[in-house]
């Protein structure tokens, strides 16, 4: 378990402000945010690499705020692997043993299991310099796990990898967490990674946590426009509210019934907007006539921009469906979305 209480870090030109965060034991937690949001800074505070200004860091109930890094029991895997270039794969993996009162012989079985798990047997005597990106990350993870850390911190472990390796390492991470139940805190700027790997997540922006919760919660119920944009809600409009109705300019949206007193925006995911030539939905609300402005073929899926009396909607459709329906730019079509897919922020 990792607990951050009022964690503040001050660096020249950047401040982390009163971060409160709990990663439960055995949880896979992701810290999301754009570049420069302070995600890595949080990892470095937890691992003890940078001094904290205020607050406390607790790992498994023990206050480690003032401990040196080597006594915190934190495993780290960096984006660039940070392998020791002067040691071969085996010596990289065994590096930490002596500091934990272990020898290779004593922990033989456990080590063999780790090496086998990461399929590194045939690489043990290789220099780490010429490994592929995926191999490097596997060695880095094996090295971190060899000393049996109480928590594992991952700093964008997939970002520097080519797409093929990215999937491989992502699957390895998922399986690893499922099988060992180790507490993982991972930093990433890619929401899909979080969605794929994590139970809970926190979205960081400029040194502040904007929202924390389950991945589904953040994905479906973003609490700020920043988070909404970050999780891919392309349609975010300032709105006025009245019970189960929202007005975006002159457009009237039916929305889920809830307390909308302090809300200011409505947001709709592009994939939740249904585009058709005539109204085919069973509901009677949230039906608008729209003009097709632009269609962008993005491979398997296509983006479509639609103008509803001056408000521009963005929808996403399978390219094949689009071909079938044969929409033309300038054509008037019908867009609908169910009230429960309208998010109020």
């Amino acid at each position, binding site marked *: 378990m990792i607990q951050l209480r009022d964690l503040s870090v001050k660096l020249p030109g950047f401040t982390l402000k009163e971060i409160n965060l709990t990663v439960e034991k055995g949880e896979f937690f992701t810290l999301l945010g754009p570049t420069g949001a302070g995600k890595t800074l949080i990892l*470095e505070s937890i*691992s*003890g*690499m940078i001094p904290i200004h205020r607050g406390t860091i607790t790992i498994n109930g023990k206050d480690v705020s003032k401990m*040196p*890094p*080597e006594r*915190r029991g*934190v*495993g*780290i895997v*960096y984006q*660039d692997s*940070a*392998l*020791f*270039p*002067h*040691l*071969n794969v085996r*010596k990289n993996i065994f*590096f*930490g043993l*002596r*500091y*934990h009162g272990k020898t290779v012989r004593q922990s033989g079985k456990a080590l063999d299991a780790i090496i086998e798990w990461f399929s590194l047997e045939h690489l043990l005597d290789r*220099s780490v310099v010429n490994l592929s990106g995926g191999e490097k990350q596997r060695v*880095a993870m094996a*090295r*971190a796990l060899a*000393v049996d*850390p109480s928590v594992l911190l991952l700093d964008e472990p997939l970002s520097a990898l080519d797409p093929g390796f990215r999937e491989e390492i992502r699957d390895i991470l998922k399986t690893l967490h499922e099988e060992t139940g180790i507490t993982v805190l991972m930093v990433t700027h890619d929401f899909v990674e979080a969605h794929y790997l994590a139970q809970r997540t926190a979205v960081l922006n400029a040194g502040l946590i904007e929202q924390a919760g389950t991945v589904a919660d953040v994905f479906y119920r973003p609490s700020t426009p920043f988070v909404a944009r970050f999780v891919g809600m392309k349609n975010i409009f300032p709105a006025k509210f009245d019970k189960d109705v929202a007005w975006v300019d002159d457009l009237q949206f039916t929305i889920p019934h809830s307390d909308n007193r302090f809300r200011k925006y409505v947001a709709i995911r592009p994939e939740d907007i249904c585009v058709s030539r005539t109204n085919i939905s069973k509901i009677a609300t949230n039906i608008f006539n729209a003009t097709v402005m632009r269609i962008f073929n993005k491979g398997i899926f296509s983006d479509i921009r639609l103008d509803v009396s001056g408000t521009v909607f963005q929808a996403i459709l399978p390219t094949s469906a689009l071909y079938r329906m044969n929409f033309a730019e300038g054509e008037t079509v019908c867009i609908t979305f169910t009230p429960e897919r309208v998010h109020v922020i």
Partner: protein
Amino acid sequence: MKIEPFLWLMISCSLLIIAFILLPLIEMVLQPTAAAMVETFQDADVLRSIFFSVSASAAAALISFVLGTPFAYLLARRTFPGKKIMESIVDLPIMIPHPVVGIALLSIAGRNHWIGQLLQKMGITLMGTATGIIAVMTFVGLPFYINTVKTGFEAIPVRAENVARSLGASRSGAFFRVTFPLAWRSMVVGMIMCMARAISEFGAIVIVAYHPMVASVMIYERFTAYGIKYSQPVAVWLILICLFLFLLLRFFSIQPKSTT
């Protein structure tokens, strides 16, 4: 493709500089007769002065290694107020005119200065001693060692050290098992640079200690007393022996990487 005047300018400037540096040195090496070279090498004074130059500069390099390595590491890894000033202070010995270095070192070694009195109590004299010469050599050689090794440390990713610490290594453990094995090549290069600068010193040494005679002082003495012909063989021997030493050290530092 038309001739590129810009490229020609670059090449001709380069050749001019290479010639300016090499021609005098080659000429000097070629002028002494073989007989003069052999005779000079059998002169015990010459051998003694060259050996003294080499060993004193080696001592300076060793002192730089011991004291300068932690300092270089501090400069490479930490940011603190006054760091820029510290770096400028390290560069000072390069800027100071050579005789002034000697005068400055003698300034605190005098009998009417507390440091001089302290040194005297410890039985240390700078004026006219090997100690003084090593002090001068360390003074002028240190910046070369520190700057080289600092660059070497900076090239080693902090993350490697961070990982080592997260794996349980203390600060010194991380240094000796990760940083040092990755940086020792730059330390060897730094020591060569420091030694080369120390061996080449003349102006400061001639002020602090004419005797015991280092090679550069002997060359100067022979030049003023007997002229260029008589000083050239010693100069050539000094250069050859330095070159041999440096190549030897370089060779050791470019050995194929071992895995430890």
